[in-house]
Structure formats: C-alpha cells, structure tokens
C-alpha cells in the first residue's frame, strides 16, 4: 500500500512537469507563416490603394461605411480588414470584432441569433483606459459567397437596423453570389490580383526573416505555381522549407510540392501527339499516369501550351479548348483520368496531324 502511494506520488511528479513542459512547447509550436506574416497595419497592405485610402480616413476619425471586399483568393482581403480593425480597436479587438468564416456554422439560425445578438449591444466611444475609439463594432463575414441565400436575406434588415452600433464587412471571391440588396448596402471594393514584383518582394522578405537559402529563380517558381495567390505561395514556401530544412530550396522542389507536372512531360506529350500513332500516345499516357500526376493539373498545363502554340489556327485551338473544358468537367464528376486524358490527346493529335 505504502509503496503504491509512493509510486503514485512519484509518477505524479514527473507527469505534471511533463504537462507544463508541453505547454511551453505548445507556445513555441510553429504558427503557419501565412498568419505570422499577415500585415499588421493598413499601411503594410500592398497594392490595394483605394481601400487603403478609405480605411486610413476612417482611422483618422471619419465614419466607416459597411464594406464589401471582393477579388481572387490570396489578394489580402482578410488581411486588410483584420489589420484595420486591429488598428481601430487596439486591445479591445476581441470584444469589438466578430469574425465568422466558412468553417463556422452560418445558416440562417446563426445569423438570427449570434450575429443579431452581437450587433444589438451598444458600445461606448472610449476604451477602458480612457482613450477614444470608434463607437461601433465590426462583424466580419469571411467567404460570404458560401452563405445560403436565406442567411444573406436574413442579414438585410439587421444591417440597416444596427447601423448605429455595428459595421459589417463582407468578404467574398465572387460578388455575383451576394444578393443584390446586400451589395447595395455596402461600399464595394475590388481587390486586384497582386503584381509580380510585389509578390517577389514579399516572399524575399519572408525568406530573409526565416533565414532560408534558395537558388535563383525559386521565388519566380513559387509565384508561377500559385497564380498570383500570395497565401498559396507562402504555404508552399513553408512546406518547401520544412522538407528541405537547412538546405537550399531548389526550383524542382517547388514544382514537386505544388504538384506541377514537369514541363518535359507536357512537351513530350505534345511531341507524341505529332507522331500520329495511337499506340505511342496510349503508352505514353499510361506511363505518365503511373508517375502519379493529377489529370486536372495536366489539363491545366496543356491548355497553356495549346493557347500559345503557333502551328494551330484559332478555330482548332477553340475546338481543343472546348474539349479540355469537357474533360475537366467529366473529371470533376468522377471520370477516369486515363480515359479522359487519352480522349483529349486524341483530339489534339487529330488537329495537329489531320487538319485540312
């Protein structure tokens, strides 16, 4: 019995220290770089001049309208509004801002209860420490285009009625999916896709901060594979850094991580298409598929290639692109990769070799 108690005590000792140690670990647990390198102030937001101008005005004390941000992913919509609210509210950020995104439940029920409830409370124009702050709260609805129409409709009246105490910021990719009554209640801002040089600068800055070594052309590769989406570029950068910890990041790694098919494969595929031999084509596609490349990616890259190809007439290009669209659609609905790519390549072969 005594021994049991003793061992019990002994076991309790190290385990508590273990948990406390773990807490320390968790604090140190690396946060995604996307979060780490979000702009902290509105001034840091790159390239979106209109919005920045409006937000700066409101920081100086002018009133803020309801906002609607739209634009392609990774252009800084969420970052901008987060930075702005942080500057507006400072320490009381947590009490004044409600952020909902697509991963939260956002049916009509939530709009009626949570959003309305949050919007109804009034706030004072001073912070607890006596400094002035704007007399309103902020509700950020991220990825608003994935909200149901009913939920959007439920917002309409809430938005107007609570305009004294609450500002809304809707963020979406496609403004066409937001119902008209909502868009007319907001000031709309379009976020432009970021320019190449700004992306390069930002990535270069992160690499510098993290002390990463990389080959020439790597940053360009990141940007090329991410289609102007800064978030995706940073995510791939972090993955690459984890994989190659301590070594130079090579261009090849970037392509590998982002799942891009190596250019030689696409070129070889086009070459095989010009041979006018079905057997060669079929064999080649089999071997390409066993390499594990995704067919959607192959279609994407083929399209780039076809559009830039000089030896085809516009009509032929159109025919091929239409088939690419059809095949892509079929793939999404679960079609077999090999068959779809083969189908497309057959058409390309026909257009290349048998055009009158």
């Amino acid at each position, binding site marked *: 019995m005594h021994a049991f108690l003793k061992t019990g005590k002994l076991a309790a000792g190290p385990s508590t220290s273990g948990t406390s140690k773990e807490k320390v670990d968790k604090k140190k647990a690396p946060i995604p770089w996307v979060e780490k390198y979000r702009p902290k102030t509105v001034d840091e937001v790159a390239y979106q001049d209109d919005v920045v101008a409006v937000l700066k005005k409101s920081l100086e004390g002018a009133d803020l309208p309801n906002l609607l941000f739209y634009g392609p992913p990774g252009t800084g919509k969420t970052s901008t509004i987060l930075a702005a609210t942080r500057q507006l509210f400072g320490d009381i950020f947590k009490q004044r801002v409600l952020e909902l995104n697509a991963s939260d439940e956002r049916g009509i029920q939530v709009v009626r209860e949570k959003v309305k409830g949050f919007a109804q409370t009034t706030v004072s124009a001073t912070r607890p420490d006596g400094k002035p702050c704007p007399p309103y709260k902020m509700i950020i609805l991220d990825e608003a285009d994935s909200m149901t129409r009913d939920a959007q409709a439920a917002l309409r009246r809430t938005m107007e009625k609570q305009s004294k105490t609450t500002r809304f910021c809707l963020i979406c990719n496609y403004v066409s999916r937001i119902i008209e009554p909502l868009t007319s209640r907001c000031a709309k801002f379009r976020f432009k896709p970021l320019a190449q040089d700004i992306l390069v600068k930002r990535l270069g800055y992160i690499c510098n901060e993290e002390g990463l070594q990389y080959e020439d052309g790597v940053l360009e590769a990141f940007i090329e594979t991410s289609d102007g989406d800064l978030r995706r570029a940073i995510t791939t950068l972090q*993955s690459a850094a*984890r994989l190659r910890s301590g070594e130079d990041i090579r261009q090849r790694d970037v392509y590998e991580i982002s799942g891009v098919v190596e250019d030689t494969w696409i070129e070889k595929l086009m070459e095989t298409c010009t041979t006018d031999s079905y057997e060669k084509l079929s064999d080649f596609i089999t071997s390409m598929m066993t*390499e*594990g490349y995704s067919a959607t990616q192959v279609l994407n890259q083929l399209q780039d290639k076809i559009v830039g190809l000089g030896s085809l007439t516009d009509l032929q290009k159109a025919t091929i692109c239409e088939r690419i669209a059809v095949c892509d659609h*079929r793939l999404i609905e679960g079609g*077999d990769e090999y068959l779809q790519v083969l*189908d497309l390549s*057959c058409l390309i072969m026909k257009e290349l070799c048998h055009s009158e």
Partner: protein
Amino acid sequence: MSLWVDKHRPKELGKLDYHLEQAGHLKKLVECGDFPHLLVYGPPGAGKKTRIMCLLRELYGPGVERLRIEHQNFQTPSKKKLEIITLASNYHLEVNPSDVGFYDRVVVQELIKTCASTQQLDTTGQRHFKVVVLTEVDKLTKDAQHALRRTMEKYMATCRLVLCANSTSKVIPAIRSRCLGLRVPAPTVETIAQILQCVCKKEGLSLPSELATRIAEKSNRNLRRAILMCEACKVHQYPFSSNQEIITPDWEVFLQDTASKVVEEQSPKRLLEVRERIYELLTHCIPPEVIFKGLLREMVKFCDGEVKCEVTRLAAYHEHRLHLGSKAIYHIEAFIASFMALYKKFLEENMSKMF
C-alpha cells in the same frame, strides 16, 4: 505463413528501395518535429501505404506495429446504424471512410472528433499528437471532404491527418492547399525487376533475370501485383525457367475474349451474348472502369487511326456517364452498342472502297 508482399515490406524509412530522396525528406520532416497534414498520392502499388507506415514508425517507434482491429458503431442523424472497421495502434488510427459509402461524412466527423479530442496519455518522450490515416480519400463524397476541411483546422493541436489517395483530381482544392502533397510515382520496370530479384534471394530462390523483367513488364508498374505474380509463378513451377508462362488473371483473359466477340460480329444477338459476359464480370466484382479500359485496349487493336480516336471518345463519354448513373451495365452496354455501330460503318466503308 504470410504472403511475400507483406513479409518483405520495408518497415523503416532507411530500408526503402526507391524514391530515396523523398525518404530523406520524410526523415527530415520527422526530425524537425513540426509535422504538417500529409496528402500522399500515387498510382496503386507504388508504395504509398508502405511509406506511411515507415513514417509512423519513424515518428513513434516500433509500437505502431502492434495493431488491433476494432469495430466502431455510429448512428447517422436519420438513426441509421453504421459499422466500420478500423485498424489502430496506441498512436494512430487507420480507417477507410468510403467503406460506408454515402454516410462517410458522419464517419469523418465522429471518428476524428473522438480520436482527436483525447490527448495522448503518455507524453514523455512521445509526440503530442496522434495520427489518423484516411485511405481512399479520392472516393470520399464532397460533403465529407468539406467536413474534413473544418476538422483539419480545428484539431491541429492534437491530431495530424495523413490522407492517402490515388489521384488529387478528386480531392477538393481546399484540402490540397492545407496539406503537404507527396507524390509517390510507380517504380520503373527495372526497379521492380531488381526488387523481385531481392525478394527471391531472401526466400532462397533463384530468379532468372529475364523472367523478372517479364513479370515486371506485365505488372503495369504495380509493385504489389508484381510480387504477387512472382509468388504465383513460384507455386506454379519451381525451379523457374526464363520462358515460363506468367499466369494472367482469368478475368483479363475473359475480357479479351469478350472484346474479340464484339469485333467478330455486330448484331443484337451478339450484344445479348456479350451482356451475359459483362454481367459475369460485374458479379465477380471487377470494377466497371477496369472493364472500360480493358475493352478499349482490346477494341482499338482492330481499328484504324481515325476510328481509334472515335472509339476513345466514346469510351471517355460513356465512362463519365457511368459515374452519374447507378447501374454500370447500362453504360457498358451503351458503349459496346455504339462501338458496334461505329465498327460496322467502318467495315462497310472499307468494303465499298475496295469494290
């Protein structure tokens, strides 16, 4: 006595036979401690599972190999009872959610939630997270994939997901962008031949290199299949001779016969005969996609250039419709019927040209 495939499966990252650079990367990943969600993809028999198990062993030590099979029960919101079999060790949990078909969303939500919301008991010298291995992610419904997306972010602290899929085409971009993608290409024919030699050496057998190459070529770069074929050959005839017959699965032969039957005669009567054969294949659980691909491969052998493309187009069209419909036989039959029409027209045109 276990099959060679299981017996000679490498258990450590250092013992893998190919894609060594990737193995090195994985090792580094484990060492640096910061472990992201993984999406491992590649064709069947390329060694995805082997790599995942090696990775787990590297993470947790040999304890992961003590597996137990568990039956878990779930209830859908509509009160339907589901049962799913999971494979678990103290550190990880492996499950194939598509086993329960349409209800995979429930499994994804419930199972991962229960697994992830419990902390590891013994944290000394262990990782503070568990691993959930989900196989056949590409067969998950869109609903389940969206549910996964939320769970992935929520339980990042206690749980890492390793997703295993044949292709990323059917995995939604939101999941792809949250994972570190690992492509596992199929081994080349030479590599397979080498591995076969290796396996035979360990078994104390001598394998002629020609036979090894032939098996490797016949396996369509599928290593598992190659090893199984090799073992079958050994049962069939040992000592090996280099021109030994490699047994092809009888359904493949059956499929070839079916295709030649279609080419032989194009009539409603023949279509009826072929239907029986297709039913036979389907009742033996040959996936309809495989039947499509097999038929196409055989049929184009009898056609000319232009017609080949046309047949391919038909196959792609009908195979896609197969996924929208519910009964495979309709679509396979539609493909065969339209092929018959096309082929007959092609023959007649050729005839009229000759005279």
